[in-house]
């Protein structure tokens, strides 16, 4: 059996990146995720696996280094926190448009602006509905444990390459900073160029050989007819991802009268709320989206017929609640409870909010 070790979420993710056989990490320090690049620099993965780690001069430079290396067909990642992701959004849009697989990690803090360095979830819209310009989607995974911080690295790379699309791990300062027991994945080998081509096709800029046409990585097409065809292709791909890659976890939903919907740290809080509620005889459940995009719309639609209400619990002013409302289609009451600016709700105040918003009004 593998050894359990105690690690911060940020560190577990960095170690998991080395073990996933990542080829490169480009980043810029920002609280609360600087441990990622600190850990990588300390570990010297260049010696362990040949993985490149570089501290860029800015988030703009870092994401564009990811663009360059990712367009070479390599497994490349970056990490940042909210304000840094705003800067990276230009590059993310370009990568979505150019169909470059990569992993972007956002260890969220409260915003807007410089905001706070304490945990937040107010980048839900940015992650799931754009952030950068244009019609594009990221595959967004939301870990709620340190173990998932580690496990989602390899999963993100797999999905990113399967669909030639950027993937994002949307975490928060609490999951990034906390330590928990974690079982690290086994070390995988970095893929050779030949293996990358065999697995994912010969689309990357690896140097034009005589036996193929040149490979061009671009998001530009000045002819609107062709740009529309490209956009239709992207939308078809997104539809396929929605059909195949939706992931979520249900906790005590089977007999629940009220379902909380929450991800990341909020989902951890809600597990305690279930316990407190059930001690009082309230049948509470939690539906935890693991992929925020694609959003687990169907199970929520299905539960809407059975339950007395949904509470969206987020560390923001109410963002994911809009997707829940769309999924519920008016069949059940939907409320939101959230703290902002780096404040974290206590389980007892969430329970109180649930009772006030969904039960005493019924």
């Amino acid at each position, binding site marked *: 059996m593998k050894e359990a070790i105690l690690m911060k979420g940020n560190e577990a993710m960095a170690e998991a990146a080395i073990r996933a056989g990542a080829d490169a990490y480009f980043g810029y320090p920002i609280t609360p995720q600087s441990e990622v690049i600190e850990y990588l620099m300390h570990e010297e993965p260049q010696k362990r696996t040949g993985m490149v780690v570089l501290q860029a001069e800015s988030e703009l430079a870092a994401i564009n280094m990811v663009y360059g290396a990712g367009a070479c067909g390599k497994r490349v990642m970056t990490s940042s926190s909210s304000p840094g992701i705003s800067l990276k959004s230009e590059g993310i849009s370009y990568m979505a448009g150019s169909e470059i697989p990569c992993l972007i990690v956002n260890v969220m803090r409260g915003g807007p602006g410089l905001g706070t360095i304490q945990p937040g979830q107010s980048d839900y819209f940015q992650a799931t509905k754009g952030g950068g310009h244009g019609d594009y989607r990221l595959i967004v995974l939301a870990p709620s444990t340190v173990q998932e911080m580690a496990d989602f690295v390899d999963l993100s790379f797999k999905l990113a390459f399967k669909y030639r699309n950027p993937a994002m791990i949307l975490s928060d300062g609490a999951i990034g900073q906390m330590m928990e027991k974690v079982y690290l994945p086994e070390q995988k080998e970095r893929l050779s160029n030949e293996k990358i081509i065999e697995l994912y096709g010969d689309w990357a*800029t690896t140097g034009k050989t005589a036996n193929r046409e040149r490979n061009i990585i671009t998001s530009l097409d000045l002819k609107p007819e062709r740009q529309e065809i490209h956009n239709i292709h992207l939308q078809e791909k997104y539809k396929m991802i929605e059909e195949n890659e939706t992931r979520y976890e249900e906790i005590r939903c089977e007999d629940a009268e009220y379902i909380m919907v929450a991800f990341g740290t909020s989902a951890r809080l809600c597990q305690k709320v279930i316990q407190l509620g059930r001690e009082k005889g309230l049948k509470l459940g939690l539906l935890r989206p693991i992929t925020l995009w694609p959003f687990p719309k169907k199970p929520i639609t299905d539960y809407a017929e059975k339950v007395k209400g949904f509470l969206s619990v987020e560390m923001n002013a109410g963002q994911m609640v809009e997707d829940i409302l769309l999924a519920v289609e008016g069949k059940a009451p939907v409320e939101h409870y959230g703290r902002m600016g780096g404040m974290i709700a206590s389980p007892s105040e969430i329970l109180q909010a649930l009772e006030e918003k969904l039960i005493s009004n019924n």
Partner: protein
Amino acid sequence: MTTSVLTPEEIIKKGKVVFKKTKLINDVPLSYCPGCGHGVAHRILMEVVEEMGIWEDTIGVAPVGCSVLAYDFMNIDMQQAAHGRAPAVATGIKRVYPEKYVFTYQGDGDLAAIGTAETIHACNRGENIVIIFINNGIYGMTGGQMAPTTLEGMRSSTSPYGRMVQTMGYPIKITEMVAMLPGVAYATRQAVHEAKYVRKAKNAIKKAFENQRDKKGTSIIEIVSNCNSGWKLSPVEANKWLDENMLDYFPLGDIKK
């Protein structure tokens, strides 16, 4: 006496090849204005890549600007970068492919305005890449707005009364700036508006790629070029204006070698 110089008729008659387009330039119409320096710069760049036999190992990065479609014209693997970010993109490529040849091809707005940080820091890290920098003192693609390299008093659509340095700052000599960085192996300023300059510019590009082969650090080749459309001049007048104005402020020659 007359045998050393052949007439055009004699050349054709003898079937002697005096010019052959490099196979690395695609057979498509260039999107550049007639008289623009980009075409020549593209050609000599691709000639160097062909002559060095490195086309299978060369990856180029196109900028945002007139040469945004450079990848349509060069028959090698290329990436198109966001505005100003080409040196960061090239860094990413070079770091995962240290044995490949990587170059950026950028204009003055891309390299010396919006991408200044990426330019300086790629040079400061001594990224082992080649930067081709076309300086025509204006934003060509967007219709002739003021560039960081627009000369004092020079008119553009956003400096309609001439660049006033008191409010708009001075034309930036970024090649001199980055030449002082220890990571830069070679910084030079060249031109392509006359044959004698073209030969020198090509030699400079060749030296830059040789530097990359020998892992010497960053090489930056500035090419002072024209923009007859943006300058509102005929091609011939534009080249004359370049000679009489641009080269005073942006003198040709090696800055660091």
